[in-house]
């Protein structure tokens, strides 16, 4: 359900400054857990979700692929819709491209 507004999610503040791992079984702050507990609920309630990446120590490929690529792969969100409704905010432009690449790869 969308209320037509925007939700800002900071990975470092709302989830953990130490994101790591793909699945829940990999570690306490995995991409799967972030996707299911933070990202998907935000997308259900808001039209646009802005994900702030700055502040975290870093992001392994597994985390990003499962969080964003897995959103398209495992949830009923098309890549086109994900690209339209998720905005990645990072001072590192290559990180933005990487995340978008994981979503586009599922198109």
């Amino acid at each position, binding site marked *: 359900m969308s209320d037509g507004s925007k939700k800002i999610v900071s990975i470092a503040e709302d989830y*953990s*400054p*130490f*994101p*790591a*791992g*793909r*699945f829940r*079984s*990999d*570690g*306490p*702050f*995995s991409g799967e857990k972030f996707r299911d507990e933070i990202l998907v609920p935000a997308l259900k309630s808001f039209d646009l979700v802005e994900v702030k990446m700055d502040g975290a*120590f*870093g*992001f*392994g*490929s*597994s*985390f990003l*692929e*499962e969080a964003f*690529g897995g959103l398209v*792969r495992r949830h009923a969100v098309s890549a086109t819709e994900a690209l339209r409704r998720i905005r990645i905010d990072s001072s*590192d432009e290559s990180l933005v491209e990487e995340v978008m690449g994981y979503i586009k*790869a*599922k198109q």
Partner: protein
Amino acid sequence: MRKIRVDRERLRRLSNERFRRRLIREALKKRLDAAKSEGYGHRTAAEPVLYAPRVFGLLDKRERAQLLEFVEALRVSTLIRKRHVRVNFSRTERMASCGTLFFLSEVKRILVNAWGPTGCPISCVHVLNNKVAQVLRQIGFDDAIGRRSYVQPTDADVIHWRAVAGVGAEGVKAGEMVTSLRDKLPPALSSPMYDGLVEAMTNCVQHAYEDARADGCGIEGAGEWWMFAQQQHGNLTVVLCDLGIGIPRSLPLTQGGGRVEELMARIGRATTLSHKDSDMIGAAVELGRSRLQEANRGKGLQDVLAVIDEAGEGLLRVYSNRGCYSYLVKGGSMKEDYKDFGDSILGTIIQWSIPLVHEQSNE
């Protein structure tokens, strides 16, 4: 009848001596009983003594063979024969980072799995080389086996060794390691180093322990890893080790035989029927570089490699089972090297060496 002269003074001294000995015997017995009740003891003169090798290294063929033979004997004695082992360090002169981490990882695994009613299965004697004694203390080996060492690590090339262990993708520990190195790492490398570490940890839990380790000990792993950071000779070296099945066994399991052949062709090593272990590591690195859409998993080496690419100069070395893959970036050029050995480490060791000044890696 001959009269016996009693030297009362001598008799008193003898009595005192006997009394003293009896007191010592009783005290020793009391201490032994207490130790047994705590789980220590049962050590006999027949317990095996293993001589640690002169050099703890994995790259030189001879040093590697000696280290692996020593570690295997340690493993078999403690985990399979369930015996206490005394390790004699009198011959040891040099402890290189990868070989030392490999040894420490094996010891920690033994201690977790073989610490039974006979107490700590490993003790250590004759650490004659002062540097070796400092390293053993600094990396936590002495504490792990309950050995009291009076040697304080003071040498500049020892006090910066840091050892950490964990299970699975523990971002907090990777973050702490990166934070501890922050004044030694170029700022632009903090994030890539964190990414590389957490991906290597993720690989441990996802791939490294998918099957039983081929050491006959019957111990199931659950994503354990051991990590070192070391500053020496102007290099920052970070090493992460798992004691799992190794990349040559895990890659076909995660990617399938067809994908492995495809990767072999990409790196120009598809000419033989049975691939060498170093080829398999190279294929895993290639998988990390690839943009294959269907390859969701097994691409963690992409981040492992990126640390060196971001640094613009440095060395990545991946030991896995019998193989060793090296990726050297220096002076704007890149060089890959494949090397194979006759013996297997039964696991994977990833080493990053970043020159803080322009010097060669120590291993």
